[in-house]
Structure formats: structure tokens, C-alpha cells
């Protein structure tokens, strides 16, 4: 019996069989772990997104699920998904996902605008891979808050923002960029401009 076993281990087929078995075993283990964690991961991601949508309209986020159903309606137009916020049937504004290329990868954000599309309500960064501590600071509140209330569309012309150094006091339409992260700061500004230019005519005509 022992001799027979040794013989099999010397055959050419043995490595193939071995690899096959071990692959099946480990894939089985991984599939189990995946199944155990997938619900949690999806749920977390959905809650995060809902929280961000609420944040971007400056709505309360104590009870994310309930607040979301209370204030937000998901709309769709030509495969573009966007969110509509209402408080007691008064339209607050729209929020739509925007994206653009940053220094290291795609930056995804949510941009909320007033019902007439003229002003930015707020911006929230959903996903970014910028350098931590430098470009990564685009997620900091002081940077995002600068966009609040900025004029977006003036006489049907989409405005783009001018970047100035971090410590200077800006005029209307100027944004303080992050020191050491010019590219990331510019990426956010460009991203807003390009997306608004692309989507605003359609959305404005529609709504």
C-alpha cells in the first residue's frame, strides 16, 4: 500500500492533482468567508452613501435609514442617477455623482446644487486615492466648505473657479488650494466644471 502511494507521488499527474485539490480547498474557504462578510460590506457601503447624500444637503444624519427615506428621492435620467431632496414638499435641490481624474486615480464625489442649478449647496468626496496628508486633504471640511454657496452658472455660462494659495483670503469665485497638492485641488475644481457643463443643460431642460 505504502509502495503504491509513493509510486503515485512520482507520477507526472501528481502535481496537477495536488494543485487541483488544494485550489478547491482554499477557494472553498475563501468563498465561505466572502459569503459571511459580503452582507456587512454592502450594507456599510450603502449606509455610507446615504449618509453622504444627507450630508451634502446638510440634513440630519442621526437616523440615516429613516432620514434618507424621509427627505431623499432617487431619480434617474438617461442612466444618470441623481438625488432629489425635499423638506415638507419644498424642493431643496439636487445632488448628483461626479467624477474626474486626480493625481493617483479617479476622484468620486457628490455635488449638491440649488433647484435652479445656479449655486452649489455642498460637495462631498466619496472616493479618492490622493496622497494621504497632501492631496488626501480634499476630504477636509475647510476645503470642501469653500464651495458652499459658490455661483455655478451665471447667465447660462458655467463658471470655473480660480485657485489661489492656501493662506490667502479669496474673493468671490476663488478657491484656496492645498499647499503641496496643486494637482489634486485642480482636479476637484476641474471635475465640478466638466460635470456641470456636461449635465446641467440636460437636467435644467428636463426639470
Amino acid at each position, binding site marked *: 500500500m505504502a509502495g503504491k502511494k509513493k509510486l503515485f507521488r512520482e507520477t507526472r499527474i501528481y502535481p496537477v492533482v*495536488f494543485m487541483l485539490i488544494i485550489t478547491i480547498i482554499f477557494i472553498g474557504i475563501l468563498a465561505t*468567508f466572502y459569503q459571511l462578510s459580503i452582507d456587512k*460590506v454592502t450594507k456599510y457601503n450603502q449606509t455610507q452613501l446615504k449618509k453622504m447624500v444627507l450630508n451634502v444637503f446638510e440634513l440630519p444624519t442621526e437616523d440615516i435609514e429613516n432620514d434618507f427615506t424621509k427627505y431623499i428621492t432617487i431619480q434617474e435620467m438617461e442612466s444618470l442617477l441623481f438625488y432629489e431632496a425635499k423638506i415638507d414638499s419644498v424642493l431643496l435641490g439636487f445632488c448628483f455623482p461626479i467624477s474626474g481624474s486626480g493625481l493617483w486615480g479617479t476622484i468620486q464625489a457628490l455635488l449638491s446644487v440649488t433647484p435652479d442649478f445656479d449655486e452649489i449647496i455642498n460637495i462631498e468626496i466619496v472616493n479618492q486615492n490622493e496622497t*494621504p*496628508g497632501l492631496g488626501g486633504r480634499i476630504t477636509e471640511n475647510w476645503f470642501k466648505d469653500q464651495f458652499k454657496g459658490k455661483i455655478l452658472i451665471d447667465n447660462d455660462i458655467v463658471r470655473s473657479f480660480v485657485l489661489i494659495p492656501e493662506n490667502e483670503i479669496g474673493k468671490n469665485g476663488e478657491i484656496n488650494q492645498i499647499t503641496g497638492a496643486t494637482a489634486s485641488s485642480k482636479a476637484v475644481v476641474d471635475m465640478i466644471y466638466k460635470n456641470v457643463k456636461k449635465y446641467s443643460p440636460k437636467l435644467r431642460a428636463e426639470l
Partner: protein
Amino acid sequence: MKKKEIFITSAFTQNSVWRQILGICSALAVTNLMLNSLVMGLGVIFTLALSSFTISMIRDLIPKRIRMMVQTLIIASYVIIVDLFLKAYYPEISKSLGPYVGLIITNCIIMGRAEAFAGKNAPIDSMIDGIGAGVGYTLVLLIIAFVRELFGFGSVFGIPLLGDWWTKWSIMVMAPSAFFMLAILIWVINTPKLKRG
């Protein structure tokens, strides 16, 4: 070899980073924050311990010619488990570590220990060797991260230590400073040994 000796050897005397200069890619990448370094270190310790243990368990069954394929498969499986665990239970940390958790698979230390130790020794010894190598790696990460976070952010583990007067060194946050810090660390640790000859 005694168990304690195995641990000391793989963690300090033959430390993977400063003696063997292995696994430095990730040591450079995640060391700008102490917390990220710690989580990364724990991930590597977990992967090293279990992959060394598993590889040692089946070391007599693994056909020699395909042993690296088998090692990679086993290592990758444990890394994916770490990644899934972080995604499910510590999503914030998982987010800030980005792709680096997945890249533990390519950490040369793990394959190095599998080849150099687990393939020839008993399972428990291999596991201790793995933990030792992981602890040694984590130690390096934490030392570098301590300096980088302190100078770059003025904090340690996110707790601000230096006040507002401190001008943050942007260079410490970026990758180049990790090269300097790692080189200095290797230099400082190895100099006495080289002088003794």
C-alpha cells in the same frame, strides 16, 4: 532550536527588513500613520503565522517543482481573508490602507519564510518563526511611522502631541521620506555589527 530562540532569530537577529532587506515596498508605503502601520503589521503577522503553519503541515505532500505555486495560493488565501475581515469590521482602516492589504501577497518576507523555514521545519516551529518575522517587520514599520507621523502630522496614533506652532513637514508624509527613514534605520542598526566585523 528552542522556540524562544526561533522567535528571537527571526524577529531580531535575522530581521527580515534590516538584515535581509525584504518587504520594504510596503514598509515605505503605509508608514505615514502609526495606526495604518500597526494594522498592516498585524495583517502580516497573521498571514505569516498561518501560511507558515499551513505550508509546514503539508510540506511533505507538496511536489517540489510546483511548491511556489502552492505557497502563493496559500498566502493569497490568507491575505484575502484579512482583506475581507477589515472590509467588514474595520471599513475605515480598510479604506485608508487602500490596495496595500491585498499587496501583502507580494510581500517577499512571507514567501521568504515559507521557502527558508516552513518548507523544512515542523508546523509549530514554523508558526513561531512566522510570528517572529511578522513582529520584526511590524517593529520596523512602527519606528518609521512614529518619526513620520510626528514630524509630518505632529501627532502619534492620531493624538496631537506637538502644538499649533509646529510646522508640518510635508516631505514626511510623502513616500521619499520613507526611503530616508528606512535607510537611516538600517544604517543605525547595522553599524555596530559591521564594526565588530
